[in-house]
Structures are given as structure tokens and as C-alpha cells.
């Protein structure tokens, strides 16, 4: 009987432990790499960027790389992490969390999510987070270049979070670059046709068939921003910011 009771007790505790599914405890740094995907140098460089950014703008951005989500959806996992760490200032809720679930043998699916605190939802609508993930992170992550993915994302995030730049401008600049690329390719095309026609006049028969133009550098604009480098101190603790489920995610 007693044995039975103690077994039940043990079972209850075990079930509770499973149910609680704890998230990593609040760290003493902005970068937490549980998968060891970043080199020491990369991690230190990103940590330096993030802490300098937090010091100058009070926006806190944390990065978590984890080998497992315990079977949970990445957005709800990230939400619990962000809320329990309290990223961002309490009065502004200006925190952001980038979660990367790395590929492992047991769980070969790679996932990435950007979560925004309440205060950053305006500057970073979900669609913008999705754009950052799709344009700046997915390919790099698929190539196992985690440091590059994070740095490229931060290049976009920093000026926007600092209020120097907005999503609307990002879209506009992308369009402008696209137009410029289109203009340049048109120019090249015209020149090429002119050259070819001259050549074919001189050497009839040398160019067979009609010129067919296949594709062109009509790539969408990919804006790059200078990543500001700040001098800065170390990690000064998260401020207790709150998150409301804003953000987006992707797979790689």
C-alpha cells in the first residue's frame, strides 16, 4: 500500500515535470546558444552588438538557439521564453526575441521565429518579421550559417527599432532598388541588341535565330544597412518587458 502510494506520488511529480516543460532560465547574456552553432567569436560579436544596442536605445533583443522545442509550437515556446525572461523595459515592452531551433539528428526540422514585445509591434508588424525571416535568415540558416543569419537580421532590425527607419521605407527602398535593377538590365539589353545587330550586319548569318531574352536580373531589392557599431558595456539584465504573441516564423 505504502509502496503504491509512493509510486503514485512519484508519478504525479513526473507528470508535473512533463507538464511544466520548463524553458531555459533567464540568462546573463543576450545570446544563448544551447546548440553551439555559433563560434565563440561570432557569439561574442553578436552579444556585443546587442548589448551596445540595448545601452543606446533601451530596446532589448535576445537570441536563443536551441536544439529542441519539446514538441511545442515555436511561437508559443518563444512566447513563454520571452515572457519569463522579461525581455525589454517594463514600461515600454520594447523587447524582441529571435528563436532558432537548430536541426538535430532526432529533430531534423529547422525553425526560426522572431517575437516582438507589445511596444515593438507597431514598428515590426508580423509581415515585416516574416519578410526579415524570408529575405535575411532562411537561406543562411539552411547553409548552417547561423551567425550570418542573425547579423543580417539585426542589420535590418536595428535601424527600425531605433526609429531611424520604418517598414514602409524598407518596402519602398526594396522597390526602388528593384526598379533600378530593372532599369540597368533594360539598358544592358538595349546595348546588347545594338551590338548584336551591328555585328550581324557586318557578318550576316553569324547570329542565328531571333534574339531571345531569357530572364534578367529582376531580383527584388535586398536592402542592406550598415550595421552600426557602438561601444558598449555588458549585459545589464532584462527589464521585465511583456509580449503579446506578435511576430512570425519560418522553416529551413
Amino acid at each position: 500500500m505504502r509502496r503504491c502510494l509512493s509510486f503514485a506520488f512519484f508519478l504525479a511529480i513526473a507528470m508535473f515535470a512533463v507538464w511544466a516543460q520548463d524553458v531555459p532560465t533567464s540568462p546573463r547574456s543576450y545570446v544563448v546558444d544551447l546548440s553551439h552553432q555559433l563560434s565563440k567569436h561570432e557569439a561574442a560579436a553578436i552579444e556585443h552588438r546587442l548589448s551596445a544596442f540595448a545601452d543606446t536605445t533601451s530596446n532589448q533583443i535576445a537570441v536563443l538557439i536551441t536544439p529542441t522545442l519539446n514538441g511545442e509550437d515555436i511561437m508559443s515556446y518563444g512566447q513563454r521564453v520571452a515572457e519569463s525572461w522579461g525581455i525589454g523595459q517594463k514600461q515600454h515592452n520594447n523587447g524582441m526575441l529571435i528563436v532558432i531551433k537548430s536541426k538535430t539528428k532526432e529533430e531534423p526540422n529547422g525553425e526560426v521565429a522572431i517575437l516582438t514585445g507589445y511596444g515593438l509591434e507597431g514598428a515590426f508588424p508580423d509581415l515585416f518579421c516574416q519578410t526579415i525571416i524570408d529575405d535575411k535568415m532562411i537561406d543562411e540558416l539552411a547553409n548552417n550559417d547561423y551567425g550570418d543569419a542573425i547579423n543580417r537580421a539585426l542589420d535590418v532590425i536595428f535601424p527600425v527599432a531605433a526609429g531611424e527607419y520604418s517598414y514602409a521605407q524598407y518596402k519602398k527602398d526594396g522597390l526602388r532598388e528593384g526598379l533600378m535593377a530593372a532599369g540597368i538590365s533594360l539598358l544592358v539589353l538595349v546595348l546588347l541588341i545594338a551590338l548584336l545587330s551591328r555585328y550581324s550586319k557586318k557578318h550576316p548569318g553569324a547570329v542565328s535565330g531571333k534574339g531571345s531574352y531569357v530572364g534578367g536580373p529582376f531580383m527584388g531589392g535586398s536592402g542592406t544597412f550598415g550595421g552600426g557599431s557602438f561601444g558598449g558595456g555588458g549585459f545589464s539584465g532584462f527589464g521585465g518587458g511583456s509580449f503579446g504573441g506578435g511576430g512570425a516564423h519560418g522553416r529551413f
Partner: protein
Amino acid sequence: MKKILIVVLAVVAVLVIWGISINNRLVAADEAVSSAWSQVENVCQRRLDLIPNLVSTVKGAANFEKSTFTEVVQARNQASALSIDQSKLSESDVAAYQNAHDNVGAALSRAISVTVEQYPQLTATQAFRDLQTQLEGTENRIAVERNKFNEVVKSYNTSIRRFPSSVIAAIGGFTPKGYFTAASSAHANQGDAAAVPEVSFE
């Protein structure tokens, strides 16, 4: 005789002050519940507001059948027509609200999967993908705000049920509030709403 009177008065004064402070704490907890509820309403409204966008995006597709979204529009109308007394938020109020809005979520997720099936070319468009991102973000927000509401209600309900503050709660007319239940089917539907159906090649 006078001494006794003073002692009694002192005890009454202490009791009154204690009662007031408990009452104030309950009022603060009640306010917290109200504000958490407003957040829930905000994010649910956000989903309702997305529906016309969704319908007009899908309408652009060739041979679009209106019936695909009839159910969604009906559920949306029912949910918007529902008015909840924010000062009460009894168990049945919250359940009715949850039911109406879960219907919206479920209808949406069905409509989306039908759309994905019938108009595969549509799902490749940027507009549709943008809409899916927005919908998914809204579902996330709803889940988060419901959780937060439940937490606030839990602490409120605990304090009005626990002795001795329960006495003040009874005098002050504080009634217990309802929770959102994690209906497994509703939750599964929420997850589906934005996710593209997975194709397996087994």
C-alpha cells in the same frame, strides 16, 4: 465602561480599515481582469477585421465560390453581435464568448483549407501569404491574451474565495469570473488556421 467603549471602537476602526484595504485590493484585481478582458476582445476583434480582407483576396481568384466563406461570415456576424457585460464576466459569459469566437476560428480554418485545395494558384500569391501571416499572428495573439486573462482571473478568483477576504468579497458583491477553457478541438483548429496542410509522401 468608557474603556470598553474605546476598545470596541478601536477594534471596529481596525476592522473597517482592514476591510477597506482588502476591498481596494479586490477592486485592483477586478480592474486587472477587466483590462485583460479588453485585450482578449482587441485581439478577437482583430481577427474579425481580417475576414473582409481575406474574402476580397480570395474573391480575386478565378471561379471563386461565394459559399466557401458563407460560414465564416455567419460566424463572424454572430460573434460581433454578441455583447458581453464586462463588469460580470461570469463563467457562462466567458463560455458564450469563447464559443462564438472559436466558431469563427474553426470556420476560418475550414475555409482556408478548402481555398488551398480548390485554388492552389492563389496560395502562391503574395497577398494570400501575407494574409496567412496576419491570420496566424492574430491566432497567436488570441492564444496569448486568453492565457493572460486566465492567469489574472485565477488570482482574482483565489482572493475572493480565500478566507478572510472572501467575507469582504461577499459584502462588496465580488463574483467569481469565468476562464477560457483549452478546448482541444478549438486549439487544434487554431493551429490549422494558418498552417498550410502538410503533404506526406509515405
